[in-house]
């Protein structure tokens, strides 16, 4: 390889316009004082030290590019302490020469010996380092446009203009000298360039830096930046999964996703040691090589041996933090424990993430041999691996901020999508999917259909502008019925099916476990918000078993979640509103162990009607008790017991397809109401209102209309249709009616009465209550002027008088009603008139 200095000259002559390698800048008389003082020290020290002869070409290339920037670190101040960025620059500067480059610790130390060498193919230096390559990169920046961009970061940019040029403008305004470059953009621009970036990030990225800076200061010569712009590529498609990392990825640019499980404290890492001769005060600098400093034994100025002393506060340090990353639970095969990787964050990426964060990181995968003992030549034959992070991207950030489905969009192959679309085109896709849902649970077709629609969900609408806030798109379902009707099994199934599912039992969960709580981290004394099941299942389904066993306190938090889809927290000084756009699938048992068909739903499960009305569909799971059903059920169960392996295999395939189908529909299909469908919905609603109005009851509320819309949208999603059509409305109506028939039928009259669910009492029951109260009032009035009466006697009298059976409950209710009228009060066993 060419010697460093000759190369630098070559480059200078090649591109003499404005760009100066930063090393030459330090010799430039125009450079700021900080750099001039550097030049005093010793110019020879600035030369990269000759490396060991065994160094291969790749390593030398590195030194060519990172070393010119490294000496740029300002060390003039005697109080230099900590990171270069922490110092305050007095004089304003501009232009590339005036802006100090900042050491890129993420790209590794300059003189690191070659890492484990996996490349059989030598670095194509001619291409990688030539000015042509720089020009080529600049052309990418200048020309690349992405008209179809959906990324959040690009909001507000003109998509038809060159994307990265706009970003450069942004940098000059914002002053944050970091340019994030999407690797997939590079790939579409030039596949070969992309390959080089992935394979030789250590070489390409510094070149990229150069190209960007040159371009930036050409374009905006007057900008003032803290340091030179650093390029941070992200979304390298090389690796998505931690499990797939293998020795071939070493020293390559990779992107993996995972969850942060631990972060270390900030570690100041010495980049460059500063030595001063005790005899002649001659200064010298030594770069840190693989964590070790080669202390100069002889002063080169006065030739005194062992006179050099380390001056700590003039040495250069950079920030470093260790982060432990664990595989995301979704990526893991069943029955294995998650893998972890060590990640090092440098400089301003330190403290960017917290334990618990889900992140995508892009970085360079490293492996270094472990020495057993510095004194021994024996080496443990194992490498230590870590990732030097270049770019973080939080994937769960959107949970706190706006909508962004992009982060978790599953990547489907073209064939898969074609297969799913083919399935969607089938006329009976709805039935097919619903029968693929929990096949081990027999029948309950409508319930499965309801759950299927819940899995798809409605279309998200935003009415924040008009002040209504978000319009709930999630469908909530309540299953109630006899114990032992496989409700729990259905819940378990759904929980296993959806990626963001949570399963809790009403018995075991507290309000805290459901919502979120504030915890003090014992190490950092920092307050951390720990999220509970509801927040965790944002964009998913929260399955709550034994809903009826939940304490009232716990249930009350569901009110907000189930309608507003948010969760407000005011605890320990943290006041915030978290998104909890979760669908709730709950199961409740009747209070008296067996469902009492003579009672209404509310009476059977004893849940507040305010909560019940928030469920779109309430199903009863009862034993149908008819012969044909029994026969089919028996057949189904017996076949469960001896089904062959292949059949089971097939079914599992179905579950995978179902999963993908749902994931695809949720992210790619956003149906809107068609004119015709709107009409149908209006009619349906009016019809529902009419049913009740004949008997002086209200049989539908706006909430029911919203439910219908959601169901219709979900059904359209099942069909992969971008429009809600009348068949969707038909099915929504049918399902809604079916559910109502089961849950809102007044057992006394046999009519469907929505007020059972909305007010907790059927209209007839309310009428009856009033009648009893009136009868009681009459009875009391007939007794004349008795200020106080015995409770029991009054009850007996009333029972004797009335021809219908009066229960104690009814009597109590009547008393309460009269008390409300301020007619009487009940104290203990006596009833007093007022």
């Amino acid at each position: 390889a060419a010697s460093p200095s000759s190369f630098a000259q070559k480059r200078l002559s090649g591109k003499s316009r404005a760009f100066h390698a930063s090393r030459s800048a330090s010799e430039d008389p125009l450079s700021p004082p900080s750099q001039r003082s550097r030049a005093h020290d010793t110019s020879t020290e600035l030369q990269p030290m000759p490396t060991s002869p065994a160094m291969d070409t790749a390593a030398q290339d590195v030194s060519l590019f990172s070393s010119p920037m490294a000496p740029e670190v300002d060390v003039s101040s005697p109080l230099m302490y900590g990171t270069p960025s922490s110092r305050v620059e007095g004089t304003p500067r501009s232009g590339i020469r005036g802006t100090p480059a900042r050491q890129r610790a993420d790209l590794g130390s300059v003189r690191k010996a070659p890492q484990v060498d996996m490349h059989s193919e030598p670095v194509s230096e001619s291409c990688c380092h030539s000015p042509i390559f720089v020009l080529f990169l600049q052309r990418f920046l200048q020309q690349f446009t992405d008209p179809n961009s959906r990324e959040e970061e690009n909001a507000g940019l003109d998509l038809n203009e060159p994307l990265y040029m706009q970003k450069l403008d942004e940098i000059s305004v914002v002053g944050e000298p970091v340019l994030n470059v999407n690797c997939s953009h590079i790939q579409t621009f030039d596949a070969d360039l992309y390959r080089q970036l992935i394979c030789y990030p250590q070489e390409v990225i510094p070149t990229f830096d150069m190209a960007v800076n040159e371009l930036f200061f050409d374009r905006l010569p007057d900008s003032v930046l803290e340091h030179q712009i650093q390029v941070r590529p992200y979304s390298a498609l090389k690796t998505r999964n931690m499990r797939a990392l293998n020795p071939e990825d070493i020293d390559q640019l990779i992107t993996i996703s995972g969850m942060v499980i631990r972060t270390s404290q900030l570690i100041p890492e010495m980049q460059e040691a500063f030595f001063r001769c005790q005899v002649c005060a001659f200064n010298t600098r030594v770069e840190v090589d693989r964590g070790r400093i080669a202390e100069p034994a002889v002063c080169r100025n006065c030739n005194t041996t062992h006179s050099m002393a380390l001056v700590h506060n003039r040495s250069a340090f950079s920030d470093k933090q260790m982060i432990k990353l664990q595989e995301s639970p979704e990526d893991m095969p069943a029955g294995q424990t998650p893998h972890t990787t060590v990640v090092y964050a440098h400089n301003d990426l330190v403290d960017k993430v917290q334990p618990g964060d889900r992140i995508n990181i892009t970085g360079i995968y490293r492996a270094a041999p472990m020495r057993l003992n510095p004194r021994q030549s024996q080496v443990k034959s194992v490498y230590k691996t870590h990732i030097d992070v270049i770019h973080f991207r939080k994937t769960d950030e959107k949970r706190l901020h706006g909508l962004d489905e992009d982060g978790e969009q599953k990547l489907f192959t073209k064939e898969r999508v074609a297969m799913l679309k083919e399935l969607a085109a089938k006329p009976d896709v709805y039935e097919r999917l619903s029968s693929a849902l929990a096949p081990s649970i027999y029948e309950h077709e409508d319930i499965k259909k309801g759950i299927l629609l819940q899995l798809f969900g409605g279309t998200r609408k935003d009415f924040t502008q008009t002040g209504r806030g978000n319009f709930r798109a999630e469908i909530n379902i309540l299953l109630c019925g006899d114990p032992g009707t496989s409700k729990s099994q259905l819940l378990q199934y759904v929980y296993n099916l959806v990626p963001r599912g949570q399963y809790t039992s009403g018995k075991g969960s507290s309000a805290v476990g459901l919502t979120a709580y504030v915890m003090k981290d014992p190490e950092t004394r920092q307050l951390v918000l720990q999220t509970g099941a509801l927040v965790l299942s944002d964009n998913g389904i929260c399955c709550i078993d034994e809903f009826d066993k939940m304490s009232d306190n716990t249930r009350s938090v569901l009110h907000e979640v189930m309608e507003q889809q948010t969760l407000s927290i005011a605890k320990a000084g943290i006041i915030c509103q978290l998104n909890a756009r979760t669908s709730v699938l709950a199961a409740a048992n009747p209070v008296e162990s067996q469902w009492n068909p003579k009672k209404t739903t509310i009476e059977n499960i004893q849940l507040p009607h305010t909560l019940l009305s928030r469920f779109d569909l309430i199903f009863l799971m009862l034993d149908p008790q008819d012969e044909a059903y029994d026969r089919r059920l028996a057949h189904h169960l017996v076949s469960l017991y001896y089904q062959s392996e292949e059949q089971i295999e097939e079914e599992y395939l179905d579950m995978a397809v179902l999963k993908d189908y749902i994931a695809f529909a949720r992210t790619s299909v956003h149906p809107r109401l068609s004119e015709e469908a709107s009409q149908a919905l209006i009619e349906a609603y009016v019809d529902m209102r009419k049913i009740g109005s004949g008997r002086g009851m209200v049989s539908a509320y706006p909430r029911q209309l919203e439910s219908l819309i959601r169901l219709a949208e979900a059904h359209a999603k099942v069909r992969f249709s971008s429009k809600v059509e009348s068949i969707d409305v038909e099915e929504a109506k049918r399902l809604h009616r079916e559910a109502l028939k089961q849950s809102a039928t007044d057992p006394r009259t046999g009519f469907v009465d929505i007020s059972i669910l909305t007010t907790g009492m059927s209209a007839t029951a309310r009428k009856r209550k009033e009648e009893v109260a009136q009868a009681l009032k009459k009875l009391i009035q007939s007794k004349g002027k008795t200020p106080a009466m015995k409770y029991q006697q009054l009850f007996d009298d009333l029972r004797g008088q009335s021809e219908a059976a009066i229960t104690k409950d009814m009597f109590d209710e009547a008393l309460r009603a009269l008390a409300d009228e301020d007619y009487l009060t009940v104290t203990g066993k006596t009833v007093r008139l007022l």
Partner: protein
Amino acid sequence: MPSVHDWINNPLGIVDGLFAQSNSCPDWEKKIVEYFKEKLKLNDAHTWVPSLNDVPLHYLKPNSLVKFRCMIQDMFDPEFFMGVYETKDPTSNSKQVKCGKYKDITEGGQVDFNSRNTVTSERQTFYCVPIPGESQWNSFAGASQARVVPSTSYVPNRHKRSYEEDDEMDTQPQQMKDGSQGAQSSTESHGNIEPKRQETEAPSHDSSPSHCTSSLDLNFSLPGEKGPACLVKVYEDWDSFKLNDMLEVFGILSVDPALSVIADEREASSLLDPTEGMETVEEQRVHSPPASLVPRLHMLYAQPLVHNNPLLPSSVLENNGDYLSSVLGELASIRAELLTYLTHVLLGDSLAAEYLILHLISNVYSRRDVLPLGKFTLNLSGCPHSSPFTEHLYKVIQQLVPSSYRLYMSLYNMNNQRMVPRKDYTANRLVSGTLQLANNTSLFLDETQLEQGQLDATGVRNITALGNLISWQKVDYDFNYHQMEFSCNINVLITSEGRSLLPSDCQVHLRPTLNPPNLEEYLSAVQVVQVPSQLNKYRIYLSVARALNYTISDEITKAVEEDFVEMRKDDPQSMSAEDLHRLLDVARLLSLSHGQNTLSRDGWMKAKQLEALRISRTPQQKCVNGNEP
């Protein structure tokens, strides 16, 4: 050609030899594995290999081939190592290409990191512990097989050895090797470390808790477990292994003292050099424990164990048609004897004994979406409170099954025991819990030990975990930020006074017909009568019956359907879908217990009778408070 002793005593020599032979050929790795597989296949060769389960660690020769019957307790992160590396002799400047596979440490000369010949490979580390709850008889049976081990360095009955002897013993084979191979680690280092090893004593042999074991938690699932834990390095197909799998690992034992040295040094130096050792001290301790306590085992070959009954051939039962038919011939008589025995144990209650047999041969044979099929959790109610009965019952079961554990459900235990395994992120390991058990372990829940009182948060969590285990045959491991579901296959037997507070598939109320004046004496007497050969028959019977296949013909399906409809017609309340589930389970297990592969009409009727008898005993109190199983 290498002799038998060579491939057991010096497998690395063979590895190196094969590596040298196929110089540049890339399939040398395969050849090595094939070689050892072939060797092990030869007439019972695998019984010659000394077992880490039975032979104390300090009697085993370093770098020899050993076997280890174990359960995967934790999986560490994969590590990259030098598969092939080049060394440079500083004096002669000669270079040599070496194989780093199956070794922890490079040997000879300076390693040239920049060599073009270096090949980086990947391997996975599993933390393995002996199968939790293995019964005494199980390890005895295993040991009797390993006694034939022709191990040169295996000198029993010699606990205290002098330094000279040690040196002699270790250097002898070492010199042998040096003569044939040349490059081997120096004998000096062995001599130096020997006293240390003697101090630490293999925990399996030493009954008194030594100071070393107390300082290092070997992370066994069950309290009071003993035995060696091992770091197994896996070179192939590690994705095919799952947590809690039972394995018989054949591998090269590595106890190089240098491995422990790093741990010591690191601890001291970690303060000085934070960038070097990013691992916490705890993590260090867990991931590189002293090799004398937790040896490394470089896996050459692993046999997944379907069962851990040493009386049975370890390979899959279907392949052993002859064996199976020989057992099946005797089956009826063994079953009758076992039934009589259990009836005696259960104080003359033959129905309970019948159900106990069904329970003991139950096995989750398949899962339909979330529903595990084949589990048969038995709740034996009516057990007297605070009497030696449950203890003796457990002893009997322990005598019959390969692995078991008795969980005292006392309030203290429920509130304090860690049942669900939890990930410790500081030490980066999975901290085991009582419920981390291998497949087909018998879990004996003793609810008679439970008193009235307050369950705290841990207690509630434990009860929930037990409930999940019984209903879904899964345990949700706690990973702090999320939970992860691990399916399991554990036979749960609950003894209680009344109906158990935990769900169960089947409740049998004990109805003793005998009333011996001294329960304790009676129960011990019943057990003493059983001779070991008889017990062995029972053990084989239970393991075979559990592994049988089962089908239902169409004809019987029809009959069952008819029957169900008929029963529902009379009284729909008496027969729910759940009852049918149970009835089918009972019918299946009953057929299997008689060695029948398919359900017969007769078997169905018997199952119905059995169920009718059982239900007639239990007072109708289904769903006390709307609790669903």
